[in-house]
């Protein structure tokens, strides 16, 4: 950091200092900025948390699917369109890596060019003639470095605060929302569609009751045969092979296909009486 004395004595840096003070964050908060900062913290925290969650899910999903049979389509059947599509997909996967390598190479080249330039222009820039320009450049460099350092520091602190805020606020925001939606859904089912709910519950209850009744009935049907077998053996009668078939009129009375048919049958009985 430049000393205040240096700033006062350096005439070339005065204008720059004034500009720098304009962009320097004031110690006193600007009205309305607190809300922005709180929202920004929350946004940062939520983005980080959401990103972490998404990433963990995607990784789990990838692991799950990488255990598949990994079949690839046969190369013989590929058309030119297929190959173009595959090339684009491949490019999509390799592009970030290629771009990262390019950036690193560019940075290395820039550093090398800067070193060469310094070697060539060094004596000129170190001369008294370029003194003011050099000092101004150094000052600018220091200020940029100070700003970046401050941003890093602020970012380091704010990320932790934002993450904590998001972790605390997510249940506070989501729980009432889920509860409200749940209540609305229950109200919708209870008040607007009570018949469907009753049918659903009645259907399930009836299903269980019918299943239980049928199981008991099946057992009694079997017990009927066993009891008869036992009674016949006790009375020294020949075991019964098959029961005689009841007359069709008898069977018909328990196999009515419709309510009308049953009603007709009952009417017939009333007429006979």
């Amino acid at each position: 950091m430049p000393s205040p004395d240096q700033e006062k004595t350096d005439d070339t840096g005065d204008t720059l200092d004034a500009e720098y003070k304009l962009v320097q964050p004031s110690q006193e908060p600007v009205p309305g900025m607190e809300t922005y900062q709180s929202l920004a913290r929350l946004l940062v925290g939520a983005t980080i948390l959401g990103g972490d969650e998404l990433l963990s899910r995607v990784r789990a999903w990838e692991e799950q699917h990488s255990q598949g049979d990994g079949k690839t389509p046969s190369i013989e059947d590929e058309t030119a369109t297929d190959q173009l599509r595959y090339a684009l997909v491949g490019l999509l996967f390799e592009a970030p890596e290629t771009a990262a390598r390019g950036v690193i190479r560019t940075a290395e080249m820039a550093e090398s060019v800067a070193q060469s330039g310094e070697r060539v222009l060094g004596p000129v820039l170190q001369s008294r003639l370029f003194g003011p320009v050099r000092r101004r450049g150094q000052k600018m460099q220091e200020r940029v470095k100070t700003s970046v350092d401050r941003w890093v520091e602020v970012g380091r602190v704010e990320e932790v605060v934002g993450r904590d805020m998001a972790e605390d606020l997510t249940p506070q925001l989501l729980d009432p929302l889920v509860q409200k939606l749940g209540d609305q859904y229950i109200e919708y089912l209870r008040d607007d569609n009570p018949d469907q709910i009753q049918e659903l519950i009645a259907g399930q209850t009836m299903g269980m009751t019918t299943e239980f009744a049928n199981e008991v009935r099946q057992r009694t049907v079997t017990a009927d045969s066993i009891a008869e077998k036992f009674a016949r053996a006790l009375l020294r009668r020949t075991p019964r092979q098959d029961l005689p078939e009841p007359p069709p009129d008898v069977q018909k009375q328990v196999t009515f296909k419709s309510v009308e048919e049953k009603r007709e049958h009952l009417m017939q009985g009333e007429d006979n009486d």
Partner: protein
Amino acid sequence: MTEQTLQGQYAGFVTRLMAWLIDRGIIAVVLAVTAWLVSYAMGVFGIDLSQCYATGGWQGYICWFVTFCLAIFTLVFAPLYMMIFWTFAGATPGKVAAGVRVVRMDGKPMTFRTSFRRYVGYVMSFIALGAGFLLILISDKRQGWDDKLANTCVVYSWKARQNETLIQRMTKK
């Protein structure tokens, strides 16, 4: 492919016994509740139905009258329950639960006269210490005395099937 069922076939002794037990349970509950309600209502007026002989005056007359009515109700409730259900539904609640139905052998619907005759057969079977019911076990059409007297039979009203698991267990034994 439709599965062969025993629907419409003659129902056996155990199924009918189960239906009868369910009906007796229902009748017992109804009679007990009625007796308790009447006894409670009489208690409000200071009449104890179990102490009629010790109750004097008009309260004693009412006590005896209510006890008599209760006894008559107890006697007629079971026959009426059976006959009304046989006539109008073809089955008592117990028979519905057991999945059987009373039908006439001539295919016509049940009438009150048929139901009455059937009930008489019931009573006769009881008097004979249940011999009329045991006939279900050996008769060809699984008919007891009550069925023979009223010319009725009891058939499975549901798509009845044997319980294969139970048969296998019995066969192993």
